[in-house]
């Protein structure tokens, strides 16, 4: 009898090595499927069970997932771009030009990084609009909305810091204007400006600071908050859908919004 691909896959899944990595093993019972999610370090952030309706396109339009997808593209292309880029003056500009015209696939990677960055900002806003207009930010999910706002800020800061790195005229003047906005902060605006740029002008120190922020600090912060954001979906009762909401939570949400409406009157 000829073996199908799924037979081979079942055989692979019953080997000792596979079982040592994925302890849930073979089988497609509800328990096995739940264990496969629960015992995986990445998947255990998510619910072990979801309603079919919740993973349909119309519920969420997959906007959060798509945002995360662009983030993954940005991490991968960003790491590759780092291999040819020196964050120094004036080498940074020459490296950007080299990436564009000399390095094989450099233009593709740079453009992919740029377009994904644009797409990520767009998708973050689309995701927030979807969550807002569906009312999915309401209790018990209010804290996950706050984490989402933090992630929005991190996304915008990543865009801003990445803008300086090509070290061209557009980058220079955009960061000059942007950092001068920071000096409008009352009392210690000038100090914020100085710390941000590592000097009084957009110069080598500023380039290096923005590089470290863009490539290390902000991505790490993003990964941390993305993990909490995903985990809170499960902890706050799964993805939001008005019809499938348990009656008690729906009632609580109703009371909370009523109380808020009363407060604001």
């Amino acid at each position, binding site marked *: 009898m000829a073996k199908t691909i799924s037979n081979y896959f079942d055989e692979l899944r019953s080997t000792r090595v596979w079982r040592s990595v994925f302890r849930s093993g073979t089988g497609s019972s509800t328990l096995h499927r739940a264990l496969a999610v629960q015992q995986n370090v990445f998947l255990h952030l998510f619910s072990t069970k979801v309603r079919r309706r919740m993973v349909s396109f119309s519920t969420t339009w997959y906007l959060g997932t798509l945002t995360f997808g662009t983030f993954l593209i940005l991490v991968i292309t960003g790491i590759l771009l780092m291999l040819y880029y020196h964050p120094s003056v004036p080498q940074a500009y020459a490296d950007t030009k080299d990436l564009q015209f000399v390095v094989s696939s450099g233009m593709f990677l740079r453009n992919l990084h740029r377009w994904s960055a644009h797409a990520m900002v767009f998708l973050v806003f689309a995701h927030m609009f979807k969550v807002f207009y569906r009312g999915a930010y309401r209790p018990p999910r209010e804290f996950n909305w706050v984490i989402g706002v933090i992630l929005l800020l991190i996304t915008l800061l990543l865009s801003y810091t990445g803008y300086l790195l090509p070290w061209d005229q557009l980058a220079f003047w955009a960061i000059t204007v942007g*950092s*001068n906005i920071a000096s409008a902060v009352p009392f210690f605006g000038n100090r914020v400006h*100085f710390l941000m740029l*590592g000097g009084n002008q957009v*110069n080598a*120190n500023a380039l290096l600071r923005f590089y470290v922020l863009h490539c290390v600090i902000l991505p790490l912060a993003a990964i941390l908050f993305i993990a909490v954001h995903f985990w809170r979906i499960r902890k706050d009762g799964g993805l939001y859908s008005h019809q499938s909401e348990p009656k008690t939570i729906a009632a609580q949400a109703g009371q909370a919004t009523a109380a808020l409406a009363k407060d604001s009157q």
Partner: protein
Amino acid sequence: MPEENPTASAETSKRLDRREFFAKLGLGSLSIAAAGTMVFAYQFLSPNVLYEPSPIVNAGKPEGYPEDSVTLDVNSAIYLIHTKEGYFALSAICTHLGCMTAWKPELGIIACPCHGSKFTREGQKTDGPAPRPLPWLRTWVSDDGDLMVDRSTDIRPMQFVRI
């Protein structure tokens, strides 16, 4: 002391017990350490030496600037202006958000390309979002007869250098 007074136990209960004392001591030391770390972090992040161009610029001989002329030096971002009253130097950095302005000889104004601020030749704002006029910069003639400008020192307007 043979007789322990009976109020002692009541007093000790009001006083810190040893566990609480050490907890507070630990927490206090950690707070002091955290505050110190903040200070060190701030100091570490502010560079003590800057490799930026000197604020003092040698603008060359005054004869290089004919009367009734406005000359922008893009490297130092200053205007050297020679009028009937004398010479003066104006910062070319827009007071709004730091873009470099440009002299428009056909209109006789200084204009910022970023957000549309407009200034007179004397730096007075006539239009746009700039909150302050363009500052006049300290200008003097060196011993060699060169015009010198200190970009870090603003002076009151209408102080011309006469030669």
